């Protein structure tokens, strides 16, 4: 388990790059950390106004329902979008100093997780404003987050290393993510999808993760732990494959960048 020892030795680098990432983002902006709220709020406003207009639904408290899906989705898509740039962005350091390269995707996912935690306060705010209250099941939040975090680590390892060799994959990833947004029950519920197409959504791991968050905050019930267990297992498998691929590809990063 050389990987973990190496990462442990470089823990300070992980910490400082997470801090740099979070701090650097707001260093020059007038509203600072408030952007963590303003951006998703605007997005929520747009979806909350548009979707009930164009898609009839009989979901109670639609805004809360949607927010429970939208915020975790933004976390997911931001990580993957940024992962496809992270090596190119840091090309200068990669070419000049040795450090375990996997720290870059790892600290990216971690700093976005911190951002997600901040913007999760919005979910809480919406739940409370709508008078839905919070149940004891909110304590299961870390389990759902863990499932998503592991999945993201694996995907970020793959995306960050492959894009070094295929630069135009970045644009492709953007389009695919947009497509996936609609193939995940975020702005609608699974039930409105005709039976014969539902399997598409059921193959999408994000469906279960968002279901998890929704169970906690919207339905106020225990998320399906067995399902989350499967997602965590898949996430670990993706991470192992991702790491092996990353390790193979990273040997030529300095030459390709």
């Amino acid at each position: 388990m050389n990987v973990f020892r190496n990462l442990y030795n470089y823990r300070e680098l992980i910490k400082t790059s997470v801090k740099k990432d979070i701090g650097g983002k707001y260093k020059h902006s007038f509203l600072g950390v408030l952007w963590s709220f303003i951006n998703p709020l605007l997005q929520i406003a747009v979806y909350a106004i548009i979707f009930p207009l164009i898609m009839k639904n009989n979901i109670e408290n639609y805004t809360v329902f949607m927010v429970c899906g939208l915020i975790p989705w933004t976390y997911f898509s931001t990580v993957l979008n940024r992962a496809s740039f992270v090596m190119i962005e840091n090309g200068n350091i990669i070419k000049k100093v040795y450090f375990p390269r996997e720290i870059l995707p790892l600290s990216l996912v971690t700093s976005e997780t911190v951002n997600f935690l901040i913007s999760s306060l919005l979910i809480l705010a919406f739940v409370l404003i709508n008078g839905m209250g919070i149940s004891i099941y909110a304590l299961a939040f870390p389990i759902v987050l863990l499932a998503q975090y592991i999945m993201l680590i694996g995907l970020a390892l793959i995306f960050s290393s492959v894009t070094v060799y295929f630069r135009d994959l970045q644009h492709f990833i953007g389009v695919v993510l947009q497509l996936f947004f609609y193939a995940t029950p975020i702005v609608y519920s699974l039930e409105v999808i005709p039976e014969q197409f539902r399997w598409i959504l059921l193959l999408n791991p994000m469906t279960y993760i968002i279901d998890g968050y929704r169970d906690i905050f919207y339905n106020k019930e225990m998320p399906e732990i067995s399902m989350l267990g499967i997602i965590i297992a898949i996430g670990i498998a993706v991470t192992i494959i991702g790491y092996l691929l990353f390790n193979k590809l990273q040997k030529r990063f300095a030459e390709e960048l």
Partner: protein
Amino acid sequence: MQKKTENRIIVEHVYKNFNIYFDKANSIKEKMLFWNRNKKETREVLKDINLTIKNGEAVALIGINGSGKSTLLKLMTKIIYPTKGKITVNGRLTSLLELGAGFHQDFSGRENIYFNASIFGLTKKQIDERLDQIIEFSELQDFIDNPVRTYSSGMFMRLAFAVAINVDADILLVDEILSVGDAHFQEKCINKMKELKEQGTTMVFVTHNLGSAKELCDRAIWLNKGEIQLDGKTDKVIDKYIEETK
């Protein structure tokens, strides 16, 4: 343990090829459309390099431009990997290939010390212990809390050098940076490196400054067209090198 750390760097039958693309297809689109465009030429930069650097040695790598010195140094730091062969490094290694790699312009000098030192693998506690020493060496006491984008290139260099030299590495690799800074700081750097050498730090320099090579190193390796031309006592190798390249 003693036996294990006797050899700091072992390079065995190392070859390094670079692919030189004339017009590189860097995207899937180009790879599909212009699959025949990937015309490339392989350049052999290092050929069958064998060398062992012992604990506490100070070695100068000399040679004309393009002889593979910097490539060899990059291989030792694991920034790039050999095409064939094996390199073993025992101990913590710090490299100064370019000063200030990884500095973040908007952060203060102090924050950058933390960031830069952590790239070299130090923990928070270790950096805390060295912070005063680093600031003192850099002579930037009055500016240390200003963002580094306001620094002059000399100040930038001093800070970067101060960090790298204070991380207490077992092995220090330096690529052609003794030529920066004013005379006063240059002398300070050379003195510091002498001090490190006395403390038993293993050092490898790439340099064109034969004078400082003679001053600092007890062994020199002359690379020529990717091969070791001569390896031995600094004076001898440098004399021979000057004679041949005249």
